[in-house]
């Protein structure tokens, strides 16, 4: 008789997610205070962000979240092939997100807008705060995206070799919860950073 506790396992994942909410929550709190102190500077600085790329990345992340949720349904129904395809679509979405971020950050760094640059020193304190928060929050978010991608890659391998199956899929559920957290954070980052012009 095998001993396992799927509910306990998921509860553990949720407690970990709560610590992540505190991590990003602290940053959102800093954002809220800085924004109330430097609202005009934040508006000016946000003009430099490309809302179009931000919107595309929002769509890409929402689609990737849906495919993860669908892959869990597919595993529960015993449809291994579909589950793998759906998870591969998720990874493809993650890759598109990263490529977009590469061009977005790359352009800003090219025109000299990065922490510690000569151009940054000429900006007002509020604008410097905006760009520091922008780089730190989107950077930390992207780091979570990479970690989520690694977790889902492991999940794909386990679905493929049958250790995640229709009777035992809590690892995929927990990986999915982590992926949705990444999506959840972006849901707030996108309007707060890109749409406040």
């Amino acid at each position, binding site marked *: 008789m095998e001993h396992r506790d799927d509910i306990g396992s998921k509860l553990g994942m949720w407690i970990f997610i709560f610590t992540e909410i505190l991590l990003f*929550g602290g940053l959102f709190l800093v954002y809220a205070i800085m924004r109330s102190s430097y609202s005009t500077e934040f508006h000016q600085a946000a003009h430099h962000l490309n809302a179009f790329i931000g919107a595309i990345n929002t769509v890409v992340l929402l689609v990737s979240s849906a495919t993860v949720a669908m892959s869990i349904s597919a595993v529960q129904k015993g449809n291994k092939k579909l589950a793998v395809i759906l998870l591969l679509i998720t990874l493809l979405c993650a890759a598109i997100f990263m490529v977009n971020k590469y061009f977005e950050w790359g352009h800003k760094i090219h025109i000299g807008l990065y922490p510690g640059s000569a151009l940054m020193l000429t900006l007002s304190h509020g604008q410097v705060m905006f760009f520091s928060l922008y780089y730190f929050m989107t950077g930390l978010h992207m780091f979570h995206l990479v970690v989520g991608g690694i977790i889902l890659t492991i999940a794909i391998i386990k679905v493929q070799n049958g250790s995640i199956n229709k009777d035992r899929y809590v690892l995929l559920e927990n990986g999915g919860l982590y992926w949705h957290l990444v999506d959840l954070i972006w849901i*707030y980052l996108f309007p707060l950073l890109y*749409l406040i012009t």
Partner: protein
Amino acid sequence: MHPETVHITPYRTLAWVLITLLGLTFITITATWIDLSALTVAVALLIATVKAYIVLTYFMHLKFESSLFRVFVFMVLFIYVLVIAFTLSDYLFR
């Protein structure tokens, strides 16, 4: 331990959830084109919170988990909102 009834979210439900979320994203973007001055952030945050609620409920499966999960998530978010409210009330009305 096996749960007696396993809830499988239908693909159709998840597809509708995705369509709703994409629709709300579109509304957020178009809402910023209209100048609502001070209300812009409030509207953006409101829509983001609706989206977050949908993600938590369906994608993160909270609707079909034991109520213990919902109580935990609610308490954490409630405490976080309190932290924001107290900190901002200090900064804004000092």
